[in-house]
C-alpha cells in the first residue's frame, strides 16, 4: 500500500527560484535558507523587509520573495533603524558580512544595538572580504593569509580578530545575541533555532537581536568546501566560541 | 595608418586566458611595440567567462577597448558565442575544438579549429593549452617573433626546468599545427 509522497523538506516559500551566484559550497546559501525558513514558519514573509549589505550577499534580494532594501556598505543597521522606527509593525532584518558589519559598519551596529532597535541582524562571519577578492577582514584569524595580508595577519600591526558578539553583549540595553555555525548539519540545526528565536523576539517587540554565523569562503580561503567547513571548526570556532551571549529571556540584563 | 593588431583571448577562468594575453603583451613590448592588455572585470567574472584583449601596434594606441577586434582565440563555447560575431570582417578566429564542436557560421572570417586541450594532454600537461593556442596564433599572424616568445617564456619560468620543457613542446606543437593548417 503506497500513499502519495509528502514533501518533508523543500525550498521555503520565502525563497525565490533563482540559482544563487555564490561559489560552490559557500555557506551563504545555507544561511539564506535558514532565514527564509524562519520567516515562513513564523508567518512573517508578508510583512518582512530585508536590508542587503555590500558584500557577496549584495544580491540577496534576488533569492527571497521578500521586499528588500539595498544599503550602502556597512550602513544596513541605520537603514533598518529608519525603516523600523516609521513602520514598527513590520519585521525588519539586515544581512551583513564581516567587512560590512565589523569594519566600516562598526558605528552603526553598535549604536543600533545600544538603542535597542527592534530589528534582527544576521551577521555572516567568514573571516574575509569575499566580494572584493579576499582582503583581510576585522575577523580574519591571526596568521591567516589574505590578499592584503600575504604573509598572514600580523596581530602586532592589525590587531586580533574582533569578536562582535562578545563586544555587543557588554551593552546594557537588552538584546538577543548568539553565535552559531553552519559547518556541520548539527550546527545548522542549532543555527536555525537561534535565527528563528531572533525573529520571534522581534515579532514580540522585545529587543534587538543578532545572530552571528560562522560561515565559509572556499574561494578566497583557497581550499575546497569540505576543507572549509573543517577549518571553521578547527581554526575559527576556538576563537569564536558558539553560544548565546545575551538573552532577554534569560534575565541576565 | 600604422599597423595594429587586436586579439581577444576568451574562455573559462582557469584556462590560462589572462596569462596567454599577458605573455603576448610582454613579448610584443620587448620587441619595442606599443601594447595594451585589458581584462574584463565585470559582473560576469564570478562563474562566467573570463577574457582579455591585447592590442599590439606600431604607434601609440588609441582606444584600449576594442569592440570589434581583428582576431580572437576562444577556448569554450560561451566565448565563441560572445565573440564570434564581434570579430572584424576578414578577421581571424581560432577555436579550441577540444571543447567546442561548432563554428562561428561566418563566411567573412579566416577560421581554424585547434584541439588545444587534446594536444596539451598529449604534450604532458593539460595546463599548457593556452600556450599552444598562443603559439598557433603567433605563427598565423606573425604579430611577434616566435623566438621572442620563447625567450619570454624562458625568462618568466626561469629555473623551473621541467615546466619550461613542457612549455617549449607546447610552443612547438602549436606552431606545427598552425603551419599545417595554414598551408
Amino acid at each position: 500500500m503506497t500513499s502519495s509522497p509528502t514533501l518533508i523538506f523543500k525550498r521555503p516559500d520565502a525563497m525565490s527560484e533563482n540559482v544563487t551566484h555564490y561559489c560552490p559550497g559557500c555557506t551563504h546559501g545555507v544561511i539564506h535558507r535558514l532565514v527564509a525558513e524562519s520567516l515562513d514558519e513564523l508567518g512573517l514573509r508578508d510583512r518582512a523587509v530585508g536590508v542587503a549589505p555590500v558584500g557577496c550577499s549584495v544580491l540577496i534580494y534576488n533569492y527571497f520573495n521578500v521586499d528588500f532594501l539595498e544599503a550602502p556598505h556597512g550602513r544596513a543597521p541605520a537603514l533598518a533603524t529608519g525603516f523600523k522606527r516609521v513602520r514598527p509593525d513590520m519585521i525588519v532584518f539586515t544581512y551583513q558580512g564581516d567587512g560590512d558589519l565589523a569594519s566600516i559598519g562598526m558605528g552603526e551596529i553598535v549604536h543600533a544595538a545600544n538603542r535597542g532597535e527592534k530589528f534582527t541582524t544576521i551577521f555572516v562571519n567568514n573571516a574575509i572580504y569575499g566580494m572584493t577578492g579576499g582582503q583581510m577582514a576585522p575577523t580574519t584569524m591571526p596568521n591567516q593569509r589574505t590578499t592584503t595580508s600575504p604573509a598572514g595577519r600580523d596581530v602586532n600591526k592589525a590587531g586580533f580578530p574582533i569578536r562582535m558578539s562578545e563586544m555587543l553583549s557588554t551593552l546594557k540595553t537588552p538584546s538577543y545575541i548568539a553565535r552559531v555555525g553552519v559547518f556541520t548539519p548539527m550546527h545548522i540545526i542549532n543555527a536555525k533555532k537561534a535565527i528563528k528565536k531572533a525573529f520571534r523576539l522581534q515579532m514580540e517587540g522585545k529587543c534587538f537581536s543578532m545572530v552571528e554565523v560562522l560561515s565559509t569562503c572556499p574561494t578566497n580561503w583557497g581550499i575546497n568546501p569540505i576543507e572549509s567547513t573543517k577549518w571553521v571548526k578547527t581554526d575559527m570556532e576556538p576563537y569564536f566560541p558558539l553560544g548565546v551571549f545575551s538573552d532577554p529571556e534569560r534575565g541576565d540584563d | 595608418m600604422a599597423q595594429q593588431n587586436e586579439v581577444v583571448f576568451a574562455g573559462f577562468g582557469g584556462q590560462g586566458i589572462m596569462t596567454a594575453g599577458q605573455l603576448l603583451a610582454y613579448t610584443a613590448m620587448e620587441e619595442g611595440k606599443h601594447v595594451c592588455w585589458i581584462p574584463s572585470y565585470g559582473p560576469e567574472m564570478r562563474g562566467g567567462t573570463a577574457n582579455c584583449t591585447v592590442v599590439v601596434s606600431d604607434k601609440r594606441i588609441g582606444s584600449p577597448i576594442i569592440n570589434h577586434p581583428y582576431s580572437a582565440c576562444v577556448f569554450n563555447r560561451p566565448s565563441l558565442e560572445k565573440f564570434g560575431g564581434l570579430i572584424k570582417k576578414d578577421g581571424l578566429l581560432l577555436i579550441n575544438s577540444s571543447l567546442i564542436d561548432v563554428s562561428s557560421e561566418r563566411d567573412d572570417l579566416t577560421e581554424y579549429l585547434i584541439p588545444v586541450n587534446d594536444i596539451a594532454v598529449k604534450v604532458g600537461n593539460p595546463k599548457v593549452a593556452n600556450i599552444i593556442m598562443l603559439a598557433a596564433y603567433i605563427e598565423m599572424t606573425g604579430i611577434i617573433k616566435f623566438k621572442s616568445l620563447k625567450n619570454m617564456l624562458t625568462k618568466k619560468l626561469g629555473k623551473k626546468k621541467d615546466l619550461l620543457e613542457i612549455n617549449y613542446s607546447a610552443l612547438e606543437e602549436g606552431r606545427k599545427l598552425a603551419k599545417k593548417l595554414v598551408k
Partner: protein
Amino acid sequence: MPGVRIDKNYCKGCELCVHACPMHILEMSKDINLKGYYYAKLKEPTKCIGCQICAITCPDVAIDVHTHGSQFILFEY
C-alpha cells in the same frame, strides 16, 4: 518510505551533501550540468532514511526530501 530528489541544475558540485549523508548513499556524477558542474546524485536510493541531513547541508537548496507515509523525526528543525 522516504526519498530525496536532487535538482541537478541547482547543484554546484560542492560535495557537502555527499560528505554529510550518514548513510553514505550520495555521490558525484560523472556528467556536468548546464552550469558546468559535476552534480550530486543518489547512489543507493533505497537506503535513504529520510533524515534530511543532505538537504539541510546543501547551500543551494538543491535537495528535496519526501516520504511515503509517516517519517520518524530524528531531530527538531
